[in-house]
């Protein structure tokens, strides 16, 4: 069983200022060589196969800025991410296993930002794509 980490780096101040995560979210994963597309953008498409374990973790751009991932809205027939926290801490991550391969499954991310917990949704820009389709460039779009 393979595992991929999706690291979500958020420019919290930029997102709060513009009221949008568009352009203020930078998503990275460790499957570039397996066909992931758009690494480093807010439209990351992660190449996965049935059985791939996916872990979503947060990284704020600045150490004084709070951000947490409150929800991942995704077709639950494909993946059912669960919220976990690191033992002895209140820092959380999401983890889920791909239940079936699908050509393209986009998902929403729901964040909470800043010291007063402003909620913000990043709709359907990130996606899971099938490992098998990696040779067809642009297929994910």
């Amino acid at each position: 069983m393979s595992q991929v980490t999706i690291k979500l780096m958020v420019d919290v101040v930029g997102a709060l200022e513009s009221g949008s995560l568009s352009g203020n979210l930078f998503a990275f994963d460790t499957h570039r060589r397996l066909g992931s597309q758009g690494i480093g953008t807010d439209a990351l498409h992660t190449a996965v196969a049935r059985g791939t374990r996916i872990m979503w973790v947060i990284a704020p751009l600045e150490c004084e800025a709070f951000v947490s991932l409150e929800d991942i809205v995704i077709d639950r027939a494909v993946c059912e991410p669960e919220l976990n926290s690191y033992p002895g801490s209140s820092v959380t991550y999401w983890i889920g296993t791909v239940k079936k391969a699908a050509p393209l499954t986009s998902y929403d991310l729901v964040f909470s930002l800043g010291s007063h917990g402003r909620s913000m949704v990043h709709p359907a820009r990130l996606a899971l794509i099938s490992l098998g389709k990696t040779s067809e460039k642009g297929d994910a779009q």
Partner: protein
Amino acid sequence: MQNSIVLLVDVEAALADSDLADNVYLVDNTRALGSRDEGRATMVSCVAGVHNPDGSPAAEAVLNWIAYGISALPPTLPRSFNLRSHHVAHDHALLEKLAATTHPRDVAALLAAHHEEHGAFGAQRSAMPYLPVDPRSATGEFVSPDAVDYAAHLNPEIVAIRGEAVEKGVIFPALYGSPDFYTEGWYWSASVDTNKVGLHDYILDLRLLRPTRSGGAVTWAPEIHPFKVQIEVSASTMVNGFTGGPLPGVLPLAPPLPAAEGAL
């Protein structure tokens, strides 16, 4: 003004490729000032200098660097999560359990369980000087330092900042301490001479650790990989916000005054 420059590194891929190209992504916090190629290896950070009319700097310009492994523990974990003394506490707990055990089979089971959860009892983890004493995967699970898979979960470390921008006196980098858990208390920072306007290259030396198994033992060999980055320094002259000119005038208190230049 402080620029935060973050490097995200796919450590596993970089080790497989023996190359950082395509496996490093950069992000900074000064897009509004003109930084470009955010999220890519080619990112250029913009530093906006401000000078007094006499050319002296009117504001400090500071760069801060940090490098994250994409698969490593998140940087926001408080220190309590991963105290350097945890393994000692675990070893003590094991000793207490062993003292209360009489049957050899139970001793073996305790030792096996401890090894599974926390690594070998009393292991000289410092024998691998670059490895954390309590290695954890991104999900927080204990990983034996003998597990080559652990390479992906280790953070790259910036060990030097050098190159043209340093040699020409554009940036003045040094290593600083902090009580932050994530970096084990170290980060790089530099001041910028904003008189040196233009595009400048510098090199970050990143240290990755490559595990190799020979016989039964795993050795972690440090590898230094240079990575070229650019900054673009611009400068503007400080102007008075009220007058639009270089010098302060009389404050425009209401009711408006007739032009009163040289009131002092």
